[in-house]
């Protein structure tokens, strides 16, 4: 599986470098405007980081779609690798590349802002809270991607043809999102128990919907792995 991740990241090397360089150059340009634009500069830097994350996010989706729709699928799906390791390697590679871009964006923001915002955060927030929120973000990335990969794979299996498959995946995504959101709302209202995670800033989570998220992730991960290994026809 290590090799699978290695080759995914190698394949995306130019994309990752390109995005990071754009973020760095963009921020350097913004730094020259600190005097004249003042408060607009950190805001713009934030936007830049957001845009970079969107681009790398889309690129993470191609970690799956390229193999479902392009000739490279013949390379990946003839390897003696289980569906689970193919699925897991995609998620890990995606997390790594998204984290890299996020780190670079945050670092550039920090430099531009001369560390003011980060200082403020560190002063108010304790270390374990920071760790929680980072883990929470990673979890969001992983569960969202799993959900999207699942929709892609189902679309690919159910509908032949590139265009119709991709559109189908999107329709499945929308429908399942609505269903999932509806279920989550239902569950959190029937099980109103909450846990408090943060000590200073109040951040509470509904136990029911947390369990629901974890279970959904588990099912979708296993289902996608199974479909990749046993059902995808190239």
């Amino acid at each position: 599986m290590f090799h699978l991740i290695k080759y995914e990241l190698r394949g995306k090397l130019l994309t990752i470098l390109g995005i990071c360089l754009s973020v760095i150059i963009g921020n350097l340009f913004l730094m020259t405007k600190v005097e004249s634009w003042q408060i607009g500069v950190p805001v713009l830097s934030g936007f830049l980081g957001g845009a970079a994350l969107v681009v790398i996010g889309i690129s993470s989706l191609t970690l799956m779609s390229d193999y479902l729709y392009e000739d490279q699928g013949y390379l990946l799906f003839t390897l003696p690798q289980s569906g689970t390791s193919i699925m897991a390697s995609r998620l890990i590679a995606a997390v790594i590349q998204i984290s890299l871009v996020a780190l670079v964006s945050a670092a550039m923001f920090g430099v531009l802002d001369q560390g003011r915002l980060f200082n403020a955060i560190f002063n108010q927030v304790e270390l374990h809270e920071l760790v929680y929120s980072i883990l929470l973000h990673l979890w969001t990335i992983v569960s969202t991607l799993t959900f999207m990969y699942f929709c892609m794979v189902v679309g690919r299996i159910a509908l032949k043809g590139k265009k119709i498959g991709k559109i189908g995946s999107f329709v499945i995504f929308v429908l399942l999102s609505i269903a999932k959101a509806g279920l989550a709302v239902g569950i959190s209202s029937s099980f109103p128990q909450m846990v408090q995670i943060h000590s200073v800033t109040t951040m509470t989570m509904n136990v029911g919907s947390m369990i629901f998220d974890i279970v959904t992730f588990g099912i979708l991960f296993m289902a996608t792995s199974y479909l990749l290994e046993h059902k995808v026809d190239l």
Partner: protein
Amino acid sequence: MYNVLEAENVCKSYLNKRALQGANLTIQQGKILGLLGPNGSGKTTFLKIAAGILHPSSGKLLIDGQEPGVYTKSIVSYLPDTEYLFKWMKIKDAVQYFKDFYTDFDEKKAFALLEFMKLDANSSVKSLSKGMKEKLKLTLVLSRKAKLYILDEPLGGVDPTAREKILDAIINNFSEDSSMIITTHLVNDIERIFDDVAFISDGEIVLQGNAEELRLNKNKSIDELYREVFQ
């Protein structure tokens, strides 16, 4: 004799057409089988099922006694009819890729074959001509010590000189404890390397047998037989 591949009544149908309708085929250890048929006859469909990237609608296909899956992929070396290597790769990256993923890959053999094929390990995959790409794919596939080699149109779209090289490489690197299945519609160029041949038409195996016996019994070359079957 031990059968490396056994296909029993393998069917594959899509919404609007049936690509395979009950294909029966066996390949013995140490034999080279030619799967012959025109475009659209179901050759590639059959090979993709054996390679584990297509799943039969019904029927059974076993490789070394197992259904296509992780294990069979580790003993099958498949040459697809597509340009499946990553565009960013140099030839040496492609060699490394195979070495990383296949424990039966012989790196020394790969470099010897690259030399034989006159391919430079430092050239990038993107820049190669069609014939060179075919030679590179064949190098990678033959450098594995697999139980079953599956070659889909290894001579398709390459010039006669490249064809000779490819044929030589196949003959030189074939060992009697492995088996091979080769599809082609250029029967004349390659018929002398087949032990057995199977003719496939509209998703069915219509004629199958030992190549020498077919020549003796029908007093025809396999190529002539092919033309007769498919006109």
